[in-house]
């Protein structure tokens, strides 16, 4: 292996006395990709930023060398030549990581202005060259557009272009594809892999093991600011030594059969192995036929968000609705919940018409329909405590039964000490559990889940998904489970419907849709979703 480009020896970072990163050491050589994996709060981003001197905290280390630069003794002027010149940083979401008010070309031009002596005209050509090198179609005109006017994938490519314009030796990519849909994600990962192949060192920060497996050569696993395990991709993913790594790998839903619990507690050999998924033969609880909806747009034809969609939910079973952002999944959900009136098509709940009836009549039957969202915090009144939130959701006749409250908390695994606190001061996982408890309060028959776990860490995500499975088993709830993450949908659903541009392109049993996708788009979706390919579950 050639001499390492970046060597980090016993690095520690502290903010006003609190140590966030402790004794981290690793190396990255040119043409090699090292991935740092960990959940939020593990210190992986802080470690990356300390390599650019942008943590804002107190950095100390035995050694911090980048090529011939000693980063510990670098002064502001030296740092400015390193940043962009020697090291390029790619952040998560180009929409906010590129200045929304300036054309993307200008941001790339800045890097060149700072690190090359090219004339403005030469710089303009170089910008177009760099954009083309990252696979930007029709680069000349795209350079004049702002980040907001480009699609997710294109603006991420522009962000990468701005990082590599001065051809730095090391690229740090902090969650580069988290904000992207599966198909676009795989294209961007291929681009990063290409850069690594061209001899640039790549430091990939991610919480997604499947993504890491696709690109990285070696992996470092961080937890609470320390490295718990390091090694090649094969060693760490296929034969994890540390208990935490094993739990992490197990929590990844993709590939885990339906009904198999994910959370670590299950590993302790608990036998609560739910029965194999009941065949989707329960009675139909919610039936939507021929739903369509279009939204007016300025200066353009109205946007056809949902076009002739028919779905049905059966008691005790889950229909997974998967598709990329903008495919109309959420609009369907809102039509089922009676929040959006469909242009045509009908929704029946428990056999009775639910969609086009006056809101006053519909209100009495809303109890049967619950909903949980991606960001639970925004669905809680900021001034209410958990107790007030749950009590308001209870049936009036049960409202003052304290027993009912504790019963709800137990069912979602929350201690009664939570009642007096406000959601703002709870963790992401706890908030989602409160949301589920609230949805269950009126004893619904159907629960619409719109991206319920996308914002959660893998380990927390695993616990919430297991909870949803348990509740379905106990109460025979019908779930509509919406997500852009194929792995999660496959694990949770009995049947799956794949949506694209407002229509359902394929529907069928979860396993058949995955093993032998019929529709070309489904095939492409399944192919582009990184899989962990663990050997049999230990």
């Amino acid at each position: 292996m050639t001499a390492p480009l970046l060597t980090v020896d016993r690095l520690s970072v502290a903010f006003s006395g609190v140590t966030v990163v402790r004794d981290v050491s690793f190396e990255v050589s040119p043409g090699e990709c090292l991935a740092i994996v960990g959940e939020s709060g593990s210190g992986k981003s802080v470690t990356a930023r300390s390599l650019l001197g942008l943590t804002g905290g107190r950095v100390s280390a035995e050694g911090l060398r980048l090529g011939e630069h000693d980063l510990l003794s670098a002064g502001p002027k030296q740092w400015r030549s390193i940043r962009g010149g020697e090291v390029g940083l790619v952040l998560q979401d180009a929409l906010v990581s590129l200045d929304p008010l300036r054309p993307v070309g200008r941001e790339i031009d800045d890097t060149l202005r700072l690190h090359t002596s090219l004339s403005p005209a030469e710089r303009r050509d170089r910008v177009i060259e760099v954009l083309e090198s990252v696979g930007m179609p029709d680069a000349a005109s795209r350079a004049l557009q702002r980040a907001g006017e480009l699609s997710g994938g294109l603006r991420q490519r522009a962000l990468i272009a701005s990082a590599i314009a001065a051809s730095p030796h090391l690229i740090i990519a902090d969650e580069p594809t988290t904000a992207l849909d599966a198909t676009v994600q795989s294209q961007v990962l291929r681009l990063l892999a290409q850069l690594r192949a061209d001899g640039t060192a790549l430091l990939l920060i991610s919480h997604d093991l499947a993504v890491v497996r696709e690109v990285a050569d070696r992996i470092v696993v961080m937890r609470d600011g320390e490295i718990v395990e390091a090694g090649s991709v094969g060693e760490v993913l296929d034969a994890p030594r540390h208990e935490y790594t094993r739990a992490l790998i197990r929590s990844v839903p993709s590939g885990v059969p339906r009904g198999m619990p994910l959370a670590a507690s299950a590993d302790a050999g608990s036998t609560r192995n739910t029965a194999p998924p009941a065949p989707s033969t329960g009675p139909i609880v919610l039936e939507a036929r021929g739903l369509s909806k279009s939204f007016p747009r300025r200066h353009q034809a109205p946007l056809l968000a949902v076009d002739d969609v028919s779905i049905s939910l059966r008691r005790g079973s889950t229909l997974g609705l998967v598709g990329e952002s903008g495919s109309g999944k959420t609009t369907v959900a809102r039509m089922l919940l009676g929040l959006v009136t469909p242009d045509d098509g009908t929704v029946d709940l428990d056999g009775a018409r639910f969609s086009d009836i006056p809101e006053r009549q519909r209100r009495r039957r809303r109890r049967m329909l619950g909903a949980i969202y991606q960001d639970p915090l925004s669905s809680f009144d900021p001034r209410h405590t958990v107790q007030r939130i749950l009590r308001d959701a209870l049936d009036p006749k049960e409202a003052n039964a304290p027993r009912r409250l504790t019963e709800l908390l137990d069912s979602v695994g929350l201690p009664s000490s939570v009642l007096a606190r406000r959601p703002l001061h709870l963790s992401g996982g706890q908030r989602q559990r409160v949301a589920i408890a609230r949805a269950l309060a009126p004893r619904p028959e159907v629960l619409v889940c719109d991206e319920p776990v996308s914002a959660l860490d893998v380990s927390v995500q695993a616990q919430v998904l297991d909870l949803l499975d348990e509740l379905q088993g106990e109460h025979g709830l019908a779930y509509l489970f919406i997500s852009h993450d194929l792995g999660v949908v496959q694990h949770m659903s009995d049947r799956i419907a794949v949506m694209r541009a407002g229509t359902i392109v394929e529907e069928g049993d979860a396993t058949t849709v995955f093993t032998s996708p019929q529709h070309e788009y489904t095939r492409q979706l399944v192919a582009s979703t990184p899989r962990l390919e663990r050997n049999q579950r230990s």
Partner: protein
Amino acid sequence: MTAPETAGTAYGTAHVAARPGARLTAGEVISLAVILLLAAAALVPQLLAPGDPLAISPTEAFQAPSWQHPFGTDESGRDVYTRVVHGAGQSLLIGLAATAIGIGLALVLGTLGAVGGRALDFATTRINEVLFALPGLLLALVFIAIVGPGVTTTTIAVGLSTAPGYARIIRSRILAVRRSGYVEAAVVLGHGPLTILGRHILPNAVAPVFVLATLGVGQAIVWASSLSYLGLGVVPPAAEWGAMLSAGRPYISVAWWLTVFPGLAIVATAASATALGRSLQSRTRQEQS
């Protein structure tokens, strides 16, 4: 003339200055001290200034600040310090009453607009736009010309001219709350519009208004003193800061203290009220962001 609250910060990141529950910053301590002092002066002026603000002694006119007269004496020999202290009650009353009128009117205009039907919303916005386009002072001048000068008219005039600002903020606030996630969740749970209005919309919409009020009181006092300066405000010999400034102005070159001290009192009160309003605003935004 309050500044309408700006759109939420572009990136929603929490405001740095004051974290909830964090200990008070220096600025907050000072402004709290000033406000407490003002409240004491307003409620028990005798405590801070036992003298009679109206007692004249012409032979002692125009005395510079001294131990006996910390703020000096005015053109009729009255003690300026006593008058500033006794004026506190008057000015605070005007500030609070004017803000209450402004906010009261705005609450009606704002809620009607936001909760009522489309026609009502259209009407109230138009009314607000018209009131907004009129220079605040013109509204006050015409009102005072109709009803005649005096304390009550000044208070109502200032209240009237601040109402449009508040109405615009309340209306946008109510619309934002109506579009929020927790209102939608309540709809899904089957709650009726009235319950939602009572339980979620009004409490969340009105809460920031009280923060605005603290900002408004400062400005109301400033505007009331400007009206007194133009000779339309408080009737002499009442000790009101604006009137004292107006009376002291001709003697500025020979008795600077007649203008400086009442002016400082106005600035200190208005600044402290605004500072408290600002920190309350950032703390409550903390809670909800």
